[in-house]
């Protein structure tokens, strides 16, 4: 019997292959400072991510092929495993397509996939509608506790002071990389932008902007997150190793933030009981 989805779930994050991600993984990631030009692997068709239609087709074909090799009794499980694997892969790791139109004015919950520039940076922009005024939403974002809660399980973020945050990304085998950011634009109720320091091992910048949503529906929050791994191509391996995928990071951060503002808590599977034990964190 196929344990549907269980193996795929466990391995999902490990398979977080990014485009252009076929680099050797350095074990000395923290020391990498060279910035090699990004060798554009994006133009290599076989490495291109699937468009939505293509993704569905791939799943269907993949499912059929897998099913042919399986005995009837386990087909349901296989279907669940495949669908589960696909959903979880795309859901948790995120997909990326250069072909999808960029709509920075996306509707609630919408976003655009990560896009890479010549430096190898990945960037994502995503919007969400939150049922509170722009000022309230801004205040909640500025609450010193908010950052660590939003990024929990993804990145460790601690406030050094009101405008300076320390970020740490951790990967397997104890690899970590840490950097500081500084708020560079603070317009209460409108916008907050932060950037990493010039010599930081990771170039990272982000912005949240707040606009009144139409129809008395609160605030449209737009979140932009840009992450440039250290040292170009080798750095991409670091990103891969550290499992930082801005698109899925943005989705989680915005879902959590919306819930926090609207309900005072974030939905969680912490300590969720199952025959696997307690807890089903991302």
């Amino acid at each position, binding site marked *: *019997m*196929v*344990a*549907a*989805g*269980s193996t795929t*779930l466990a391995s999902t994050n490990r398979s977080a292959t990014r485009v252009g991600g076929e680099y050797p993984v350095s074990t000395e990631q923290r020391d990498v400072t060279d910035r090699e030009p990004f060798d554009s692997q994006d133009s290599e068709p076989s490495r291109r991510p699937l468009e939505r239609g293509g993704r569905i087709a791939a799943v*269907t074909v993949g*499912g*059929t092929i*897998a*099913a*042919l090799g399986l005995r*009837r*009794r*386990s*087909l*349901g*499980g*296989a*279907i*669940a495993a*495949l*669908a*589960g694997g696909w*959903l*979880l892969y*795309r*859901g*948790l790791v995120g997909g990326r397509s250069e072909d999808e139109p960029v709509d920075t004015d996306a509707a609630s*919950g919408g976003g655009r996939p990560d896009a890479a520039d010549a430096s190898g940076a990945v960037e994502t922009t995503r919007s969400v*509608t939150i*049922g509170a005024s722009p000022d309230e939403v801004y205040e909640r974002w500025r609450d010193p506790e908010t950052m660590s809660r939003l990024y929990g399980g993804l990145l460790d973020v601690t406030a050094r002071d009101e405008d300076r945050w320390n970020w740490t990304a951790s990967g397997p085998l104890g690899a970590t990389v840490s950097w500081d950011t500084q708020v560079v634009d603070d317009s209460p109720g409108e916008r907050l932008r932060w950037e990493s320091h010039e010599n930081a091992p990771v170039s990272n910048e982000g912005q949240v902007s707040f606009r009144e949503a139409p129809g008395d*529906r609160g605030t449209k929050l737009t979140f932009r997150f840009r992450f440039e791994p250290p040292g170009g191509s080798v750095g991409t391996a670091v990103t891969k190793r550290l499992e930082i995928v801005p698109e*899925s990071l943005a*989705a*989680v951060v915005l*879902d959590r933030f*919306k*819930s926090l503002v*609207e*309900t*005072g*808590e*974030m*939905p*969680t*599977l*912490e*300590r*969720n*009981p*199952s*025959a*696997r*034990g*307690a807890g*089903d964190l*991302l």
Partner: protein
Amino acid sequence: MRALCWHGEEDVRVDEVPDPQIVNPHDAIVEITATAICGSDLHLYDGYVPTMREGDVLGHEPMGEVVEVGNAVETLEAGDRVVVPFTISCGSCWFCEEELYSLCDNSNPNAEIAREVMGQSPAGLFGYSHMLGGYAGGQAEYLRVPFADVGPLKVESDLPDEQVLLLSDVFPTGYMAAENAEIEGDDTVAVWGCGPVGQFAIQSAWMLGAGRVVAIDRVPERLAMAREHGDAETIHFEEEDVYDRLMAMTGGRGPDRCIDAVGTEAHGTGLMGLTDKAKQQVNLEADRPHVLRQAIKCCRKGGTLSVPGVYVGHADNVPVGPLMNKALTVNTGQTHVQRYLDPLLETIEDGDIDPSFVVTHREPLERGPEMYETFRDKEDGCVKVVLTP
């Protein structure tokens, strides 16, 4: 605690799992006194629902006694007797404020997975796959209930568990199905599927003013229940042609309102039915939309199609041309359970309906694995199973 856990297709076991704990301030812990198996649990049992993980605790039709509450819970306290809706709803988002509780924006911790498939995420549910929340279910000794001020219904009368338990899902689901059918005076309502949801849709159709109710199934005891308890006329779909019979009954007009209380695992007849089954088994088609097709064909022009039956993915050969040209209205969705709890509890307390008429099997939790099989195979006259932990 002991809990019924999913281990794969047709593999449900009683396992020892960790006790749930209060995690968020609006959580409550409920000690379960009665918990039903739902027809939609059989889609999990048969392996049709993606994103299940081995070891997941099943169950979304529970009730019991509150044993602990988080520090922000205002309406419940230890000792309260509650029925827990299968939908988890925050009560604060735009959808909850519109009483569209099953579309809650804030209760699914895995919203991004659902979003990839559906565009947006519906509410988190108990024990119903990781795409729909990943929350442990209620076929267990204890259950953690998030947003406990919004979901659980306090039962203060001394009605036995069995009479109020089905407010957790199937009674409101049947009721919303009838409401979604937009029944007007003397309408003829056809209900496909005479499981518990179908039975409650029949009862509710009468409550909402139907002139005539026709029930369609192939299981003799379910058809008998629809006739005897539901005052419905019945069609055995393997013995009669459903379309011909419905046209004969309605003078060629077709039933005004059609309710698909079957969903994804419909048993089709003929070549199309076989094709669906084959395609579903090799993952070319996630759903078998046989009932949907038949209902579209049979429905009166300008009529309404209400779909409480659970579908999970995509379906082939759905006659969208007839749907469009006949100007049918389709209403569907997971049940907004919280919307119906108070009024339906009142109908039970007033003695207008006793929902326990569908319960055919009462067993301890330990017999859960066998009961999944009995229920799935519709053996032993099984219509509804209630388990006690």
